[in-house]
């Protein structure tokens, strides 16, 4: 394995980590502020991807498609917050799990109803379809590089939003004492809807960005949702910084494990057994990572008790 290939895989790991961060940031915000576990977050990811694919198919514009994904997911998020989620804040986690599980069924089957069971394709815009040459002569797909840049920019924007703006102050205040900020005259239910729609928009954007690399299909959100849970468990619930570190760790472990473990086993095994054992172990690597973090820090790397 050459260094060039390794660097390419590291970039792939970064790219998938950044996309995971967009999912995990919304989940962790929603949990931090409202104390809600939202299984339907993967459905919002799917809604974003389908909206983007439909708009791209109709207009041919990728930028419009991305905007559609943001708007559709945020709108879907705001609607389910006002109709369903709002009733769940003072329920126990079991009710939240069940109600959002029901939402997944409704979203998935509803999407299948509207768009059919066949995957849609969202094309990478022509200008970004080719590779770019990075310093050192590495050829890397321009689109994936753009995803990394966009994701990092959003992460920076999110940190600024939380740290510097009025709504960010309200979000942080909501995390530490929601009765108090309600008493101080902040419209709590509006704040909750905004936070939920913000998280939904991030998930929808991630769905659209990843949808251009993979196919857009029903059920695409749940595997990402579960990875995002692993990210949050590693990073610590409620911590955006934890979500970023956790997402990059999970993205890199997952991508590099899939490449390196079969090679590592190939050193002392024959090729086909090494591939089998290596890829089976690689599929477990992030969960093993999660187990190790749990052994040493049950509340995650950046979690508070």
């Amino acid at each position, binding site marked *: 394995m050459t260094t060039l290939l390794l660097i390419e895989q590291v970039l792939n790991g970064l790219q998938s980590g950044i996309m995971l961060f967009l999912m995990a940031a919304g989940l962790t915000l929603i949990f931090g502020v409202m104390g809600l576990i939202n299984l339907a977050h993967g459905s919002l990811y799917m809604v974003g991807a389908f909206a983007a694919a439909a708009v791209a198919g109709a207009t041919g514009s990728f930028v419009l498609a991305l905007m559609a994904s943001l708007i559709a997911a945020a709108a879907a998020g705001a609607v389910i917050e006002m109709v369903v989620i709002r009733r769940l804040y003072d329920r126990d986690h079991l009710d939240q799990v069940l109600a959002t599980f029901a939402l997944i*069924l409704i979203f998935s089957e509803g999407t299948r109803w509207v768009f059919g069971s066949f995957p849609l394709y969202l094309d990478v815009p022509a200008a970004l379809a080719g590779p770019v040459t990075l310093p050192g002569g590495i050829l890397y797909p321009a689109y994936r590089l753009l995803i990394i840049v966009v994701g990092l920019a959003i992460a920076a924007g999110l940190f600024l939003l939380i740290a510097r703006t009025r709504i960010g102050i309200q979000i942080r205040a909501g995390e530490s004492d929601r009765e108090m900020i309600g008493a101080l005259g902040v419209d709590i239910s509006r704040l909750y809807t905004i936070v939920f729609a913000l998280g939904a928009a991030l998930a929808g954007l991630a769905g659209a960005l990843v949808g251009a690399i993979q196919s857009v299909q029903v059920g695409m959100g749940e595997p990402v949702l579960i990875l995002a849970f692993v990210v949050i468990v590693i990073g610590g619930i409620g911590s955006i910084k934890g979500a970023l570190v956790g997402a990059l760790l999970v993205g890199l472990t997952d991508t590099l494990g899939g490449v390196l473990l079969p090679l590592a086993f190939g050193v002392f095994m024959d090729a086909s057994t090494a591939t089998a054992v290596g890829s089976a172990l690689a599929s477990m690597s992030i969960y093993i990572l999660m187990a190790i973090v749990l052994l040493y820090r049950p509340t995650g790397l950046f979690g508070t008790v």
Partner: protein
Amino acid sequence: MIRREGIINTLIFLSLPAVAGAALLLDEPFTITLATRAAILALAAVGLNLALGLGGLVSLGHAAFFGIGGYAMGILASHAQSYVPLIDTWIVIEGTKSMPVIWLVAVIASAFAALAIGALSLRTSGVYFIMITLAFGQMFYYFAISWPAYGGEDGLSIYVRNDFPGLNTLVPIQFFGLVFTILALVLWAMGRLAASPFGLALNAARQNAERVETVGLTPFRLRLVAFVISGAITGLAGALFADLNRFVSPSMFSWQMSGEFIVFIVLGGIGRLFGPVAGACLFVVLEHMLSGVSEFWLIYVGAILLLVVLFARGGLIGTLAGRAVAHD
């Protein structure tokens, strides 16, 4: 009120053999298979209910144990079917087609898995516990997909149902009788367990862990034991489920499966011994009826579930028997 719940429990429980018996008279083997399926899913949910209802542990990863039970059956029976020993390096272990042996292996394997997952997950609680059990369940799913020796993504087909001494398990009603007997025995054992000192302590640990600790018990240990027993029962159900379909695939590990087990419990009524049975029966009936109405029948299941969670807390038995006897 307690008497009313008792009558409802008896009715729900006896509806299974009544449906199977009627189907036998009318010569409708498919309905017997549906009843068997309901009984097996009920068994899996009864297992989960020990952790969830009594212990308060919302495990979203019980499909792991269901799948392990299924694969215990699949692996043992596939080796017996191809006459290739399971292990022949130092000692020779043959596959087997004998149900009791398969059940034993399924129970032991899923109990060990539950011990490992429980020991890690129970270090945390609340939302962490939900996410971690979900993640570990998913780990088994991906492992089953990427491990090519036993069919990988395609799963394993077993051509002939395994044997039970004295029965012809290929006759639907005989297999149903076997499954129903197991369900009855497990329900009886669960009823005893819930009333035993262990069950009372576990229940207390759910309601107030500090007090339980004050009287010298360890909530972690109580919960871990409950989680292991719970996983073992769900594993046994997995072995039976695989035998019913004569097929195992990674989908038995899927997280939707875990979600459905919780749905059974809540549809039926949480914290009630017969809740999972009522929920599983209701789900199988809904599945059968709605899938005839629309290809997208799960959307209706989602809507019903949402309404039950938001408005009809207490589930089917709670609605029929009233809320006064709910355990919480």
